[in-house]
């Protein structure tokens, strides 16, 4: 592993972790909304969230380019008010990874919220607990396995994100050159086979580690929550 290799790995970890942490509260709120509430346009909201899952990633990246470009509605606003741009920056890679991870995370959390027994929440309220306390002490702990699963799924998805990222923020080494992008770039250059192998091995180890960690976390919390 060269210093360059390490910086690619660290950049990938940074992008994936930040993306997942930013998405988590939104994913939870959306999952709760879809699991617990009936409102007009619900199917539409559901479809929009899932769009990145079925769309070619390149199209998602292109859409992000339109939205976040200097003249785009969000990009222009960021530029005017905060003098911030995400174009060709690692923050742009975070946005691409976040959008791609969102549907997977919403799905995982939604399933676990739907599995929470509302009768237990009712029981808690008759015991004097406010809605907020019921959420904190009953709903959230019981939905925790889904939240953990969502974190791991989202992390793995972000780590592997390629299509949307490269079409949105291109390949800027040190900024947007995450693992898959760096591997792809190295494959195009003769004499870089060593780097391809090294980065591929790191990718396998990271993904494997995430899977094993999630399995352990789910088993541990499963002992507490899945029994009755």
């Amino acid at each position, binding site marked *: 592993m060269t210093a360059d290799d390490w910086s690619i790995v660290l950049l990938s970890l940074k992008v994936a972790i930040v993306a997942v942490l930013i998405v988590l509260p939104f994913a939870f709120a959306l999952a709760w909304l879809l699991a617990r509430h009936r409102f007009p346009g619900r199917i539409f909201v559901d479809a929009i969230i899932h769009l990145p899952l079925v769309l070619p990633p390149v199209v998602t990246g292109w859409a992000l380019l339109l939205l976040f470009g200097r003249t785009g509605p969000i990009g222009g606003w960021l530029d005017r008010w905060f003098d911030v741009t995400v174009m060709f920056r690692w923050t742009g890679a975070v946005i691409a990874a976040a959008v791609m991870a969102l549907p997977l995370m919403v799905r995982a959390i939604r399933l676990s919220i739907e599995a929470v027994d509302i*009768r*237990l929440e*009712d*029981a808690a*309220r*008759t*015991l004097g607990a406010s809605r907020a306390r019921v959420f904190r002490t009953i709903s959230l702990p019981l939905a925790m396995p889904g939240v953990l699963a969502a974190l791991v799924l989202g992390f793995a998805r972000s780590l592997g994100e390629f299509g949307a990222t490269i079409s949105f923020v291109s390949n800027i080494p040190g900024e947007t050159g995450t693992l898959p992008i760096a591997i792809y770039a190295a494959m195009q250059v003769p004499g870089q086979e060593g780097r391809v192998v090294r980065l591929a091995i790191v990718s396998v180890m990271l993904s494997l580690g995430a899977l094993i960690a999630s399995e352990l976390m789910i088993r541990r919390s499963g002992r*507490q929550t*899945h*029994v009755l």
Partner: protein
Amino acid sequence: MSFEVDVAKRIGEAEVRCAFSSGPGLTALFGTSGSGKTSLLNMVAGLLKPDAGHIVVTGETLFGDGADVPPEARRAGYVFQDRRLFPHLSVRANLAYGRRRDAAFSELEETAAFLGICDLLDRRPSTLSGGEAQRVAIGRALLSGPRFLLMDEPLVALDRARADEIMGLIERIRDELRLPILYVSHNPAEVERLATHVVELAR
């Protein structure tokens, strides 16, 4: 009057209609399954909103005349038929969940002794037998400082010896704590032994 209830609620095709007033002690709601007994308890607990009518318990209007007290403020000690112990919490944490300092039962250990569940405090609900779980459910309700108790078939799925034990416990709650109890059952022997008043629900 302990309970003054006059409610109507349409649930799907069925219409639950019930009116009664009863004095202190244990009021048994007796009727065949499907006559809306559990729905009635849920309305008194605030978990189900009646379409019309009023619910007054020991002089306090819980529903009607523009009032609709939320369940967490009604101070109902609800012992559910399916117990509903919190699976992710220990027995001790279940008991302590709704604990109030000003309750007749505010000491967890004391209540556990009263119910004979001192040995169970560190266990998980999933490891309890039916009778044990039922006693924990009753303890959890008592510790929440209830103004009245709602009990939904608390003896169902228990063998005779366990049922007899719990009945003894309910009699003590009725006579020593003097808590008004609204009690749902379809078992005549149980009603015969425990009830001060009987309200029969027709389908």
